[in-house]
């Protein structure tokens, strides 16, 4: 299957600054309905990558393709197939939600009657059915986020680009937003590119993740495969002589790395119970100060990729992670 997003040695300059430094990757599968997470610290180039995919910036070298179309040379074909939810407030304040969505749908190419029908349909879908005749300017922050999502999917795009969709949402609204994104890919077969700084959001929704740092791809991971491996991450803090702990962990089938004296990150396969760690610590005459079960594998991956930790247990050291996206 062809990739949804294909980036090849892409370089983008804004003024004299080089923001994207020759990144390459192939993301998603056309028609498969997958979600791709785009992560990175502030200034990593996430927004620039999204804006380049949308045709807002011209690459200085390389190319970016969406669904087989060049983002710059065939911008019209690309834009006909994508929906975009920007991070910041973006709407026409003194328009009702129905009129706004109808306008957006018609600009995307829907005939008048279909645009009106879809505007109503999608507003009910995102939970704004009862307030669809209110002016968007009067909406709360959460409602505006939902209206932005609605305009991104009103025309039924093949790829939806979401830039920080859960920004400013309360926990219930955040859950609703994430549920909608899941439904978009699972029930409606849309591909989703999700840019977020909330790792839990990305982990809950995405099948793949790309991590950018200083304009380069520092890691690309298949979260679906990670989930299937059913590994558990554990943080263990001990007091005492822990020099033999790494070897002892290997004996029970677990792997661990020491980040600091007495601080261990351990990955447990599904077959190894947490109780075996207590027995191991007792055998090694170590005092357990802290034993935390970590569910978020993505945080581990992210921290390693951006250089905040040296190595993930069971994975390659950070220095060995292929850079520039050639994975």
């Amino acid at each position, binding site marked *: 299957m062809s990739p949804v997003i294909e980036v090849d040695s892409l370089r983008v300059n804004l003024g004299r600054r080089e923001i994207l430094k020759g990144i390459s990757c192939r993301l998603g599968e056309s028609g498969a309905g997958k979600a791709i997470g785009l992560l990175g610290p502030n200034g990593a180039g996430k927004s620039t990558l999204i*804006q380049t995919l949308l045709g*807002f910036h011209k690459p200085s070298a390389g190319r970016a393709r969406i669904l087989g179309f060049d983002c710059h040379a065939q911008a019209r074909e690309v*834009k006909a197939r994508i929906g975009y939810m920007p991070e910041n407030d*973006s709407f026409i304040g003194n328009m009702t939600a129905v*009129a706004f969505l109808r306008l*957006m749908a018609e600009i*995307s190419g829907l005939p008048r009657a*279909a645009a009106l029908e879809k505007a*109503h349909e999608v507003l*009910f879908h995102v939970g704004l059915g009862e307030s669809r005749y209110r002016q968007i300017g009067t909406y709360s922050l959460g409602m505006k986020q939902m209206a932005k999502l609605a305009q991104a999917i009103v025309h039924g795009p093949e790829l939806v680009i979401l830039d920080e969709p859960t920004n400013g949402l309360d926990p219930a609204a955040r859950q609703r937003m994430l549920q909608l994104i899941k439904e978009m890919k699972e029930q409606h077969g849309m591909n989703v590119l999700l840019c977020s700084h909330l790792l839990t959001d990305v982990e809950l929704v995405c099948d793949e993740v790309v991590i950018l740092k200083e304009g380069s791809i520092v890691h690309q991971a298949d979260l679906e495969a990670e989930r299937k491996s059913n590994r558990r991450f554990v943080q263990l803090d001990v007091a005492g002589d822990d020099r033999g702990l790494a070897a002892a962990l290997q004996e029970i089938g677990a792997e661990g790395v020491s980040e600091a004296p007495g601080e261990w990150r351990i990955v447990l396969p599904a077959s190894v119970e947490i109780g075996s760690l207590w027995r191991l610590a007792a055998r090694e005459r170590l005092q357990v100060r802290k034993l935390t079960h970590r569910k978020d594998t993505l945080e581990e991956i992210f921290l390693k990729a951006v250089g905040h930790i040296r190595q993930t247990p069971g994975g390659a050291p950070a220095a060995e992670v292929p850079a520039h996206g050639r994975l």
Partner: protein
Amino acid sequence: MAVYRRGYQRYEGGLTSHLERLMVMPRFSWARMVEQKFVLILLVVSMFWPLLCATFVYLANHSELWQGFDTGFKKFLAINGKFFSVFMKVQSGYALILASVAGPGLIAPDLSNNALPLYFSRPLTRGDYILSRMIVLLGLLSLVTIVPGMLLFGMQAGIAGGDWFWNNWYLGAAIFFGFALYIVTVSLVAMTCSAYVKWRVVAGALVLAFFFLLAGASEMVNSVFRVEWASVFNVGYAMNTVWAGMLDLAIPDEKPGVLECAVFIGALGAGLLALLARKLRAVEVVK
């Protein structure tokens, strides 16, 4: 099934043509524009002068009513280039006021609400956006310029007969192209002011100020340096000179001619378009 029960389904039907998409924004804008009472009032007021001119045309073509009057008065009643020149000058004033009222509401709200990324992430280029916004103003302004002008010309041709039409067809062309040039220029000024000033009232005032300030500045240069060429920078003068050329009227020798004025208007239009394109971007790039 009711929409609220049906649930969301992706749209998979046919898509409209690019031209139809281009006309979507003007359609929505016109609908919102006629909701503005001031625009409607201006439109109604701007019809008085054409109605007066139509009455004049009717009376001028009924010579039996003026049999007792002298030739000087009868000459005054002649429907010629001078008559249409006066008509165009008055109507262009209404068009300018209308543009200053309706123009700022077109682009400024999109910029203040950051709506451009939404437009430009759809199959709509910057050129398409400018064109579709311009269509709104051109349509509105043509209602007070080209449409009444051509109706007036048609009325005169209809009453006066085929001979008059064949001898004066260039007057019709002058009304059409002269007004077209004018409303394109005024639209560009209004849109550029709207793009650079987010407050509608200030943007509207700036549209009017643009014409008056240029006129004042050109007169000042003329007076200080004791020259006449600076009149070319007075948009009103430049436009009137081009119209006079089209309507076959006399132009003072010492002042800039039709060619100079046409070149200035062309350069002004190109400059405004460049300024507009520079401002209308999906994202602001801090270099």
